[in-house]
C-alpha cells in the first residue's frame, strides 16, 4: 500500500536494497513503477540506494526509498545530506527489533528516536506513522506532499506487523488524494522578482522560514548544492552570519508551519479522566482497549498520533484538557515517544505501557486504564 500511495503521489524514482521487513515495498516498486512511468533500481547497499534517490530528486523527480533499522543506520549520512541540501525525499522505515541486526522478522517500535534524532544538530524531521494498510497509502501520499512543500526528507515509520500482515483494503474506497507537486520555477518558469535578487542563490530566502524555490540540477540556471555549511548561494562557508542563518532556516522552515503539519485521530470523551496516547501498530490494541474499558464504565479518551514529529503540541493540549493521567502505549523498552511528549504534559501523571518481543495486547492496556489513578 505504501508503494501504491507513492505511485499515486507521483513518485517517479525508487531505489532499494533487500532487507526484511521492508523488502515488500522494494518488490512492489520494482513490479509496478516501470509500467507507471517511473524507474525502480536495485542498489548494491542502502548507502547507494538513498544516494540514487537524492540525485533523482535534485533533478526534479519525486523519489522514495525503503529500509529497516540496519539499513537506516547506513542511510543516516545521506538523510542529513538531503536535509542540508533541502532535497525532497520520502523514506519508508519499516521497524524491526533492534539493536543491530536484531530480529529481522520481529516487530518493534524502537526506531522512533533513532529516526528523528539522526542529524547532528537535532533538526526536526517529519515522521508519519501509519497504523494499518490503508493509512500506509494515505500517509505516504501525505509524506510526499510534506517533502515537496518543505524541501526536506520525510519519514514514513511503519513496522514489521503492518508491513508483513495481509490486510484487505477496498481500492474503490481509497481517497483520490493528490500530492503537492514541487513548487518550482526550475527550468520551466522564470523567477520573476526572486530572479533579480537571487542571482546564483540556490537557497535564496528573505525570512528564515521561507522555503527556497526549487531549481533542479542540470536546469537552465546554475545550481550549487552542498552538504557542507553554506550561504544562500550554496557556497561552502564555515560560520559567516549568512551561513548561520541558513542553518537556522533549516529548522525554522518547519517549526514556523508546524501547526499545518499535523495528523492525529482523536476519540475524545469530554468527561475523561484518562487519556491513552499511542501510534502505529500499538494504537490498534490501544483503541480496542479503550473501547472495551468504556463498556465497563471507564471515562477514557484516545489520541492516535500519526504525525509523531513535529510533535502535535496543540492537539496534545486539547486532548489532555481535564485529564488526570496519560497512558502512552508503544512497543519499545522504555517509552521512547513518551520521553518526548512528557515535557508537554505539565503536571499530569504519565504512565507507559511498554513491551518488546511481542505486540502489546488490549488486555495489558486495559489493566492499566482500569487500574488506580
Amino acid at each position, binding site marked *: 500500500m505504501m508503494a501504491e500511495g507513492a505511485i499515486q503521489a507521483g513518485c517517479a524514482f525508487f531505489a532499494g*536494497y*533487500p*532487507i*526484511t521487513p521492508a*523488502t515488500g515495498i*522494494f*518488490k512492489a516498486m*520494482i*513490479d509496478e513503477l516501470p509500467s507507471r512511468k517511473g524507474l525502480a*533500481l*536495485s542498489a*548494491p*547497499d*542502502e548507502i547507494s540506494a538513498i544516494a540514487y534517490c537524492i540525485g533523482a530528486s535534485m533533478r526534479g523527480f519525486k523519489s522514495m526509498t525503503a529500509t529497516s533499522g*540496519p539499513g537506516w543506520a547506513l542511510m543516516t549520512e545521506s538523510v542529513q545530506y538531503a536535509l542540508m541540501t533541502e532535497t525532497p525525499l520520502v523514506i519508508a522505515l519499516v521497524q524491526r527489533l533492534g539493536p*543491530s*541486526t536484531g530480529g529481522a522478522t520481529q516487530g518493534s517500535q524502537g526506531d522512533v528516536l533513532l529516526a528523528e534524532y539522526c542529524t547532528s544538530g537535532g533538526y526536526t524531521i517529519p515522521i508519519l506513522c501509519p497504523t494499518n494498510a490503508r493509512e500506509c497509502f494515505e500517509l505516504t501520499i501525505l509524506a510526499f506532499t510534506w517533502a515537496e512543500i518543505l524541501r526536506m526528507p520525510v519519514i514514513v515509520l511503519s513496522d514489521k506487523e503492518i508491513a508483513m500482515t495481509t490486510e484487505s483494503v477496498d481500492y474503490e474506497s481509497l481517497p483520490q488524494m493528490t500530492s503537492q507537486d514541487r513548487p518550482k520555477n526550475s527550468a520551466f518558469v522564470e523567477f520573476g522578482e526572486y530572479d533579480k535578487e537571487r542571482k546564483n542563490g540556490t537557497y535564496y530566502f528573505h525570512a528564515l522560514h521561507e522555503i527556497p524555490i526549487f531549481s533542479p540540477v542540470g536546469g537552465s540556471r546554475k545550481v550549487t548544492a552542498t552538504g557542507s555549511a553554506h550561504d544562500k548561494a550554496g557556497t561552502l562557508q564555515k560560520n559567516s552570519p549568512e551561513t548561520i542563518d541558513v542553518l537556522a532556516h533549516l529548522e525554522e522552515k518547519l517549526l514556523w508551519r508546524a501547526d499545518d503539519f499535523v495528523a492525529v485521530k482523536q476519540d475524545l470523551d469530554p468527561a475523561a479522566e484518562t487519556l491513552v496516547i499511542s501510534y502505529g501498530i500499538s494504537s490498534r490494541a490501544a483503541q480496542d482497549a479503550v473501547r472495551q474499558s468504556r463498556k465497563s464504565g471507564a471515562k477514557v479518551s484516545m489520541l492516535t498520533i500519526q504525525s509523531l514529529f513535529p510533535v502535535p503540541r496543540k492537539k496534545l493540549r486539547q486532548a489532555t484538557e481535564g485529564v488526570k493521567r496519560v497512558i502512552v502505549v508503544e512497543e519499545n523498552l522504555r517509552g521512547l515517544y513518551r520521553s518526548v511528549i512528557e515535557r508537554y504534559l505539565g503536571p499530569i501523571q504519565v504512565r507507559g505501557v511498554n513491551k518488546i518481543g511481542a505486540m502489546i495486547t488490549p488486555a495489558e492496556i486495559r489493566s492499566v486504564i482500569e487500574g488506580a489513578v
Partner: protein
Amino acid sequence: MFEDRKMETMTAPAGMELVYRRPSTLVDTPMHYCPGCSHGVVHRLIMEVVEETGIQEKTIGVAPVGCSVFAYNYLDVDMQEAPHGRATAVATGIKRVHPDKIVFTYQGDGDLAAIGTGETIHTVNRGESIVVVFINNAIYGMTGGQMAPTTLLGMVTSTTPFGREQPVMGYPLKITELIAHLPGAYFVTRQAVHTTAHVRKAKKALQAAFEYQGHNKGTCFLEFVSNCPSGWKMTPLEANDWLEKNMLPMYPLGDLKVPGRN
C-alpha cells in the same frame, strides 16, 4: 574448551569399515538450510579441514548477514557475526591482534560483492592473512530471492521479474577475477560443490587455503559457485543442473592465483 560437547561416537558394525561420519567439529543439530542448499556441504568441508588439521581451538570464524547468519549454530569454533558486508573488516581486527589464530570469513555474494565490496577489496589489497569463503549463488536467498550483483543476465529474480537486463541492472560482477589481480591476494580459486568430484576438489582447495594462512603472505580467497533451490524456484536436482549449464560458463572453475605460480 570443547570437552563438554557430546562427541559423536559412531562405530562400524563388525566386519565393516566406517568411511563417513560427521566431523566432530560440526555441531550435531539439524541445519535450517533448504533441501539441496550448498551451505551445508561447504560448512562440512570447512569443519573437516579444521578437524583434520587439529586447529579447532585456534580457529575463529566471522559470519555475516544472510542465510549463513546461523553458521555459528553448526560450526563448532568461536564465531562472530558481523554487520552486513563488514565480515572481512571485523576479521581484520581479530587477525591483527591475534596473528597466531586462524581466521576465516564466510560470506554470500550480496554480503561480499555488494554491500561489502569496499571491505572485500581493501582487505585483500592489504593482504590480510585470512581465509575468505565466498558463497556465490547469484541471488539474495534470505530476503526472498532478489537480484544480487552476481545474478546472471536474463536470470529471473523477484526484483528482475523479466530477467536481469544489462542496460538497467548492469553486468554480473566477477569479483573473484577482480580480487585475483590484487597483489595482496595469495591464493584465489573458484570451486563448486554440486557433484562428488567437485566436492573433493573443493576440499583440497580449502585444505590449501587454511595451510597457506600460516605463511602470512596474503589473503586466501575461495569462491564456491553455489545453488539456491528456493530462490531459484527449482528442485535441488534442477538447481544443480542449472548451475552446471548457466553458472559455470559465467563463473568458470579453477585456480586464479596459486602461490609460486603466478
